[in-house]
């Protein structure tokens, strides 16, 4: 162990340098995976809101519009994501649907996630008063009341209400085969 003053300082400096270098390498190497995990966590939160009781979600279509929700090994429902043009932009809707084709809950992403609809009008689509109307409904019932359906539009925000309703209905009709538990190709 050399005791020269220079070596004391140098050894500290070199150790710091090596450490910093090693850590920067580890950091850049793990960063993509960490980002991926964060996305997975965000998905769990977003989907968990519409499908309580699920602990795992698997994307089913290549464009990630349909996900299967699992509790353990049992598939307990389907998640459908749709986005229809609203008043000022796309209105993304996420719906949890049980194995009989009825909606469990829906979630309209808020302005923090990019929704551009008008506050006080279209933005009200994110509130429970609007979203709760969808609970228990099947695809046929998802239409605005003045078109024969069961959904009451938000006063003064018909375009946004229609975007949510039609967007979701169209997606449910399009992906109808995925909603029933027996139909998918062996993946359960």
């Amino acid at each position: 162990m050399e005791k020269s003053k220079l070596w004391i300082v140098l050894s500290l400096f070199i150790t710091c340098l090596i450490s910093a270098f090693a850590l920067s390498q580890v950091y850049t190497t793990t960063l993509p995976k960490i980002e991926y995990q964060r996305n997975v966590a965000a998905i769990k939160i977003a989907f968990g809101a519409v499908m309580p009781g699920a602990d795992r979600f698997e994307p089913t279509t290549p464009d990630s519009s349909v996900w299967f929700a699992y509790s353990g090994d049992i598939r307990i429902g389907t998640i459908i994501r749709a986005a229809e043009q609203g008043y000022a932009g796309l209105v993304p809707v996420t719906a949890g649907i049980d194995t009989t084709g009825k909606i469990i809950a829906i979630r309209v992403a808020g302005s923090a996630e990019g929704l551009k609809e008008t506050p006080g009008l279209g933005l009200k689509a994110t509130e429970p008063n609007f979203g709760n109307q969808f609970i228990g409904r099947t695809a046929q019932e998802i239409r605005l009341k003045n078109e024969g359906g069961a959904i009451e539009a938000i006063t003064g925000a018909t375009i946004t209400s229609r975007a949510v309703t039609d967007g979701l209905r169209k997606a449910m009709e399009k992906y109808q085969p995925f909603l029933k538990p027996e139909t998918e190709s062996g993946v359960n």
Partner: protein
Amino acid sequence: MNNAKIFIAAFLVNNIILMRFIGLCPFFGVSTSISTAVGMSAAVLFVMLLAAWVSWVLYHVLLFPLGLVFLRTAVFILVIASLVQLVEMYLKKYLRNLYSALGIYLPLITTNCAILAVTFFNINYKFNLLQATIFALGTALGFALVIILFATIRERLEDAPISPAFKGYPIAFIGAALVSLAFMGFTALFGIS
């Protein structure tokens, strides 16, 4: 979260020793007598505040803007080690009796999980400098409260009839269990969790 809530949370509801389990080594080592407990608490309070400030400033002025967040652990612990070194030199020169009373426990503050934990919490909870100060203060006082409280209990335990297997650490742990149970009563105090 307003400042009073931050303080109460750090002091009682999420007491660093009894609820978060951080700072246990000195807890069991120093609480054998009230005077060492008080001395240790004072030293911890001092170092914790300083460390909270220095680490907060270093993080927000240097590490984060430069994208060097991954050096956080190393930098924070080195800051603490240096501060403890400085405190040691200061005490040795100006407060000799406190220095000898603390003995080996002073350099042990470096490995006191509580101080490093506070520096991390200040970042994770996104505190500004004032909130960080209040949090550090609350935590240090919570630490002091528990250590001193426990020292009084242990001084009594010294003379109590206890079976040999339980003497020393085991009965101390069980005592801590009971005090911790009492502190659980603070949960949701003022609506904090």
